[in-house]
């Protein structure tokens, strides 16, 4: 392995603007969520509303007490977050090989002393760093919001853990995109498949809490099942689930390396 880190650094440098913009956007979302809390806090009827099937279908299983700080953040922020960051992670996944292959820059890059697998691994490592930076900026938003909203009492450590838990689900989405884009040649098709899978996963997670039926075993195919739901901050992060997502990520990346190593580029 030679000249390690050149791709990693370049990608991070090129993504600066995107990382900061996304970080600020997510931080603003965090601030808005936090400052709304006092209005929800005194609105106990909302818990009855949340038990309506339609609300459960939208927002999840065994609805958390949304008037409690942890239930509130879990339901209105962390449950939703992967759907938002999916946009970044899936686009990033397409950018690892597919976008450069379509544009032809890969013909330049891979004529350098750079193994194909190293290109993928460095770009994937840069994604971990980019997501971590984005989430760090988001946490700053939380702190800002909590300063003006003292009634939202959550342990900052729990908040960091919940943010960390966002990494595996995003990595699995990016890795799935990467794998599909090394097999299928259409970026649009790959984006469509992964998008459907992510939203499907979300609704399988929320609906499966609603119906007690053996058919709901498909919940195990939902990445949100392993991510956790609206009770994430009340019951604690499911680290076993997170670990499983990381293992799946590793397997998907390994498969991508194998398929990409073998095939013709730009055909």
């Amino acid at each position, binding site marked *: 392995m*030679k*000249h390690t880190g*050149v*791709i990693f650094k*370049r990608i991070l440098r*090129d993504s600066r603007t995107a990382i900061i913009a996304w970080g600020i956007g997510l931080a603003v979302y965090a601030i808005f969520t936090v400052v709304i809390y006092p209005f929800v806090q005194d609105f106990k009827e909302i818990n009855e509303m949340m038990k309506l099937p339609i609300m459960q279908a939208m927002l999840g299983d065994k609805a958390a007490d949304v008037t409690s700080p942890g239930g509130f953040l879990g339901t209105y922020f962390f449950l939703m977050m992967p759907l938002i960051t999916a946009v970044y992670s899936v686009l990033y996944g397409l950018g690892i090989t597919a976008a450069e292959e379509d*544009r*032809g*820059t*890969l*013909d*330049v*890059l*891979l*004529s*350098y*002393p*750079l*193994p194909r697998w190293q290109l993928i691994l460095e770009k994937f490592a840069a994604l971990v760093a980019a997501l971590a930076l984005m989430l760090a900026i988001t946490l700053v938003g939380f702190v800002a919001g909590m300063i003006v909203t003292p009634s939202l009492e959550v342990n900052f450590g729990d908040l960091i853990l919940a943010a960390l838990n966002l990494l595996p689900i995003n990595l699995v989405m990016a890795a799935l995109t990467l794998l599909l884009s090394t097999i299928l040649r259409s970026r649009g098709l790959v984006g469509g498949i992964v998008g459907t899978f992510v939203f499907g996963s979300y609704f399988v997670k929320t609906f499966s809490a609603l119906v007690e039926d053996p058919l709901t075993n498909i919940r195990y195919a939902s990445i949100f099942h392993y991510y956790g739901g609206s009770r994430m901050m009340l019951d604690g992060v499911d680290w076993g689930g997170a670990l499983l997502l990381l293992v799946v990520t590793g397997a998907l990346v390994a498969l991508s390396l194998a398929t990409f190593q*073998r*095939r*013709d*580029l*730009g*055909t």
Partner: protein
Amino acid sequence: MNNKSDIVIHIDGLTKHYGAVKALSDLHLDVYRGEIFGYLGPNGAGKTTTIRVLLDLIRPTAGRAEIFGLDVNRDAVPLHERLGNLPGELALWNHMTGWDLVDYLGGLRGGVDMNYVRELVRRLDMDMTRKVKACSSGMKRKLGLIQALMHKPDLLVLDEPTNGLDPLVQQTFHQLMREVRDAGRTVFLSSHNLPEVETICDRVGILRAGRLQAVERISDLKQLRFRWMTLHIRGDVDLAAFERLEGVSDVTRLVNGTIRFRVAGELDPVIKAAGQYHIVDLAYEEPSLEEIFLEYYGETETTETKER
């Protein structure tokens, strides 16, 4: 030269099919150290396909290729250390400036000699502060040349390098190629342009429909060169007077007063004969690659056609 140890590129039975398209069929070719090898062929002949196999961007259907005795696939990484590449359809990162590009790509080589980069920039007269997206196609081509040359590789693989370069830059390019050769390094370049290949290459391979038709030294090819000449003459012309001339053939009368014929060898007899007439205009054309090819291999070509 031409010892086994001097072989830089060794292509052995290389075949590449894209579904039903036979892009390359059983190609055998050796390129030697210190030569500029021109790879000529019409559109779709398989030039880019050959180059992309050499760079391990695509994998052959059959056969193999070695560069410096290293397998192009298995030993791609160490091999690429010694190789500079200019793709035919060059794509670079739009948001980068020329200097960003040198920094990024130079980094992948563990750093490059910036004095030499500056020399290349100066000689190619390139504005390196300009972003790629603001570059004309010729400027992008110059950036492509800079990145291919900047680490002084032992082998340059260039796919239609002068495509889109203005004549002045082409001159500089030719000069650079001669310097590369004089330093004992090797150049493999593809082209459509026979006169250009004639000026800078030592040997030429002619590829057609995925098959290598001929590999010749340029000096041999030049002996067989011919030109088309068109004369626009005021007054009557005696075609026979031209037909009799040495080296002249295929004399035809076009529209009134215009005749066209082939000239091989020296021009002097033609000029002297034309001196008898009032010449309004004269045109002198390079034969197309196809014509050279037919001239050279006309007989095998016709037998093949008959067999079909």
